């Protein structure tokens, strides 16, 4: 098992727990009708976002998908500002102009969730091109879903990254479904050999196993940063909630969701591993749980009470100058 020190373990747990509670809370709050827009929840996939982002630094960029809360939190976006954004209030991370699907913080290297499936990979090539041209030593990492694997943009980005030898890492989170259709149906052939076909170095990891993800991520990022060209990582994981909030997931087979929650929960698997190996105790983990609960409570409270943006914001920031 990978040797991680205590602080790293606590940090990993904290981040995953924050994502989980954030998403669970949105699931609860949405039916109340205060949150104006749709959300696509990441619960169940936390180990992937955290495992990768813990291997990135300030000068590195990530791009995400419509299911972007987890990547945003893992890359260091402000949780309370994110909540305000989802609630459409002043103080939102995007000043209430983007909502859940366009959450971003360029200053933290988060190039945004994206409402267009496959919208991220070309932007990732761009950020990698910047890193290469300005010799920053940075890498750009694009999270994509199985749904994006056959988009033209995704495949063009693989080719482009390989041709231009860009420091880009593409992480495909196969959670089994592209919206309501299983990846086993919609993805022909094998996504790993597809990436190999473009000349990318490929890796695989089990998305429910934080340690496996972290170790694979470290290697993929290290080699990419060292100039070995772009990399592709295939991660098998599971989402607990529907494609979007309100999706009854009737496309799942009987007992499938129960099995996922029971056996494929990265948080319980992490907890079990660290307590069994006596790396962290339940007390310590419980303390993190309580801190995270407080944070999310406060975030919801503040977001609920935050003022709506003024109407004059409608026409702001279309251009820098016009």
């Amino acid at each position, binding site marked *: 098992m990978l040797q991680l020190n205590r602080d790293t373990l606590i940090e990993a747990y904290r981040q995953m727990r924050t994502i989980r509670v954030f998403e669970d809370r949105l699931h609860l709050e949405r039916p109340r009708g205060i949150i104006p827009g749709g959300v696509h929840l990441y619960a169940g996939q936390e180990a992937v976002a955290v495992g990768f982002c813990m291997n990135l630094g300030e000068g590195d960029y990530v791009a995400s998908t419509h299911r972007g809360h987890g990547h945003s939190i893992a890359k260091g976006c402000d949780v309370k500002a994110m909540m305000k954004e989802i609630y459409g209030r002043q103080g939102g991370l995007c000043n209430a102009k983007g909502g859940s699907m366009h959450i971003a913080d*360029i200053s933290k290297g988060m190039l945004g969730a994206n409402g267009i499936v496959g919208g991220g990979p070309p932007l990732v090539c761009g950020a990698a091109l910047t890193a290469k041209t300005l010799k920053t030593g940075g890498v750009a990492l694009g999270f994509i879903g199985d749904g994006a694997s056959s988009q033209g943009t995704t495949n063009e980005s693989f080719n482009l990254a390989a041709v231009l030898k860009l420091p880009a890492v593409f992480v495909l989170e196969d959670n089994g479904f592209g919206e309501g259709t299983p990846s086993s149906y919609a993805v022909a052939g094998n996504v790993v050999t597809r990436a190999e076909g473009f000349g990318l170095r490929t890796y695989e990891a089990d998305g429910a196993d934080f340690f496996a993800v972290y170790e694979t991520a470290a290697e993929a990022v290290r080699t990419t940063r060292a100039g070995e060209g772009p990399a592709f990582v295939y991660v098998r994981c599971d989402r607990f909630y529907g494609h979007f909030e309100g999706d009854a997931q009737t496309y799942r087979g009987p007992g499938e969701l129960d099995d996922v929650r029971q056996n494929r929960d990265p948080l319980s698997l992490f907890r079990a591993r660290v307590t069994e190996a006596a790396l962290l105790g339940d007390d310590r983990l419980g303390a993190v749980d309580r801190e995270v609960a407080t944070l999310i409570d406060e975030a919801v409270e503040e977001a609920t009470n935050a003022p709506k943006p003024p109407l004059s914001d409608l026409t702001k920031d279309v251009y820098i100058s016009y």
Partner: protein
Amino acid sequence: MPRKTIRQVITETLAAEMRRDPTVIVMGEDIVGGTGSKGQLDAWGGPFGTTKGLIAEFGPERVIDTPISEAGFIGAATGAALTGLRPVAELMFSDFFGVCFDQIYNQAAKLRYMFGGRAVTPLTIRTRYGAGTRSASQHSQSPYSVFTHVPGLKVVIPTSAYDMKGLLTQAIRDDDPVVVFEHKKMYDVEDDVPDDSYTIPFGEANITHEGDDVTIVAIGRMVLFANEAAAKLEREGIGCTVVDPRTTSPLDEDTIIECVEDTGRLVVVDEANPRCSVATDIAALVASKAFRALKAPIELVTAPHTPVPYAPDLEDAYIPSPEKIAAAVRRVMEDG
């Protein structure tokens, strides 16, 4: 004052801006030509020679031949702009926007707004438009109205070598995403162009001919045709003011309105298809803001609602001509 062609001016401007700012890079299909081959590098320097010589001065890190993946590299240019570069990407023919429009429409144009003003996207896309080269439907269109429609984009259509230098310089230095349209048939058009750098602000129309009777607003290459028509009409005793908006987004509404208020008559000339075009946009603007100044209905001289045909006579009939423009002017003169 040196004489330069539009082609020369484009190369000169790219080089000047790349010298001035190390974050400016140039990318696109065959903008060098020959990358990775055993033959001549810079074989093409762009399909119309507009980027020739740049790689010799700036090297392959800043002058990049891309594979044929518009979505990939236009998106990459967007991402690069977002993160500290100032890319000038070439979309070889504007007709190809179909394969990369999401990157322009949903990404580049909207990032600043969606991210609450916390993103800067200093992207320039150079692209080509216009009929007249017998290249038929998929290589001859003028889709600038589509881009003009999109909030967050700026659209620039220079009509002279002097204007190209000032507007392209401004486009590169501008921190918003800008699409610059180059007419395929105008690369050899010459003008007096200073060696010094200069910018022309967006949203400032140019008046290329003055007259008291009719205002002609023309787009792109049609400005040249409108000037021809105006010179001929002047000899017939009809005075035309020709307005070249230079940029359709932002649009110099004030100059257009003022000129119509002076003359009372408007003819709009646009080689694009007529539905939902820049021509209809300008006509609606004038009809709503200068209605009482109008002495006659507005005339639009445009292409027909067809794709661009191949056979030369058919293509020539598709493109508005100085004769068609003059006929429209005579009609509005008779009409009120």
